[in-house]
């Protein structure tokens, strides 16, 4: 099957008609952060003018499923507690999953399970910056969301292709479309001014060894991804496991006890997510 014109598709991704408020909002946010005279309270107040965004974001950070600690009652509070970069990621998270079709709900469940697994890996290996890593994990497959929204028929064929040839999704995407979901993730990160600590795990979770920055974070997200898939939480039913980048085992050496601990925390959540979709929480 012929691939999709990469340049044309990139343009389409950058226009993303389904996420209308996001690009403008992210630019405004980026400008405010760069100006040292603008306080967190001011930024919180400014963003808080967008009622829909505020309510979605606070609902997300306070939901038991996403596992952020404690009650967060205002945007300023979220900024202070989680930091600018985490909140940027959350703004994206609170917008993208709403647009998903029920056929892509496994992708949403997979993303939440991975964020929980990533957080647990940080806990057991004492890796700092849990919040940011959790959010990078939530967003790691953002490119797949775009594919589901923008080219739904081609993407379902790509999934079938991966299943019948027993190859990973990124490989099937490269063969069928000419690029993969991690490439799209990087285009979006560029477009939305997301920082490298979020864009690296998004862009390199299938090629950890060539991520030059934030490699440990990339490896946490990649390891969480493989663990969740191994536990049966794939984003696409029927796609089997494929060999990992060896850097993951080197950077994230998990013992069997630690793997058990991760499974203990992630499995009940995966079970509970089975019967719901993003709209139940958004």
């Amino acid at each position, binding site marked *: 099957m012929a691939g999709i014109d990469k340049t044309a598709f990139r343009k389409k991704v950058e226009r993303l008609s389904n996420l209308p408020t996001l690009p403008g909002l992210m630019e405004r946010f980026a400008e405010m952060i760069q100006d040292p005279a603008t306080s967190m309270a001011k930024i919180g107040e400014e963003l808080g003018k967008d009622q829909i965004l505020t309510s979605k974001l606070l609902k997300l950070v*306070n*939901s*038991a*499923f996403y596992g952020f600690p*404690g*009650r967060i009652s205002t945007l300023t509070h979220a900024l202070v507690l989680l930091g600018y970069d985490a909140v940027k990621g959350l703004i994206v998270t609170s917008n993208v999953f709403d647009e998903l079709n029920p056929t892509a709900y496994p992708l949403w469940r997979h993303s939440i399970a991975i964020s929980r697994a990533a957080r647990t890996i940080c806990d057991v290996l004492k890796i700092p910056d849990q919040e940011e890593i959790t959010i990078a994990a939530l967003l790691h497959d953002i490119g797949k969301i775009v594919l589901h929204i923008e080219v739904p028929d081609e993407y379902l064929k790509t999934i079938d292709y991966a299943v019948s040839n*027993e190859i990973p999704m990124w490989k099937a995407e490269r063969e069928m479309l000419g690029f993969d979901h991690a490439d799209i993730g990087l285009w979006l990160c560029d477009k939305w001014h997301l920082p490298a600590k979020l864009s690296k795990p998004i862009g390199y979770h299938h090629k950890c060894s060539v991520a030059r920055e934030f490699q440990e974070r990339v490896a946490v997200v990649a*390891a969480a991804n*493989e*663990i969740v898939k*191994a*536990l*049966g939480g794939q984003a696409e039913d029927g796609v*089997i*496991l*494929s*060999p*990992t980048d*060896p850097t*993951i*085992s080197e950077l994230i050496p*998990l*013992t*069997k006890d630690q*793997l*058990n601990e991760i*499974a*203990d925390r992630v499995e*009940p*959540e995966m*079970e*509970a997510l089975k*019967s*719901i979709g993003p709209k*139940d*929480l958004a």
Partner: protein
Amino acid sequence: MVKQGRTITMTIKLVSISDVQVGMELAKALVNEKGMTLSAEGTQLTASLISRFERMGIEAVYIHSQEQMSEEDYLAKKLHIEKHFSKVRDDPFFIPLKEVILERLEAKR
């Protein structure tokens, strides 16, 4: 104890507050944002407790659940795991992970 291929194991499940039922038992204590325990681990849920949780905006709670696994279920799951791991038999990341998953399945048997 194994009885005619059927066993019962206790597992922990996260259950949405709209699906919890009277008589279910909390598997983890419910703690508010200040760290105060609202309900202890092991508490049996009553109708009034459930509606109180709902009013407080609690979305889901961890409960103990009894799961039965038949021999057929067990074998089907084992077969599925073998297929799922068929391309990664020598991958150092997946070797301990597969052992853990098989042990967890065995524990539920």
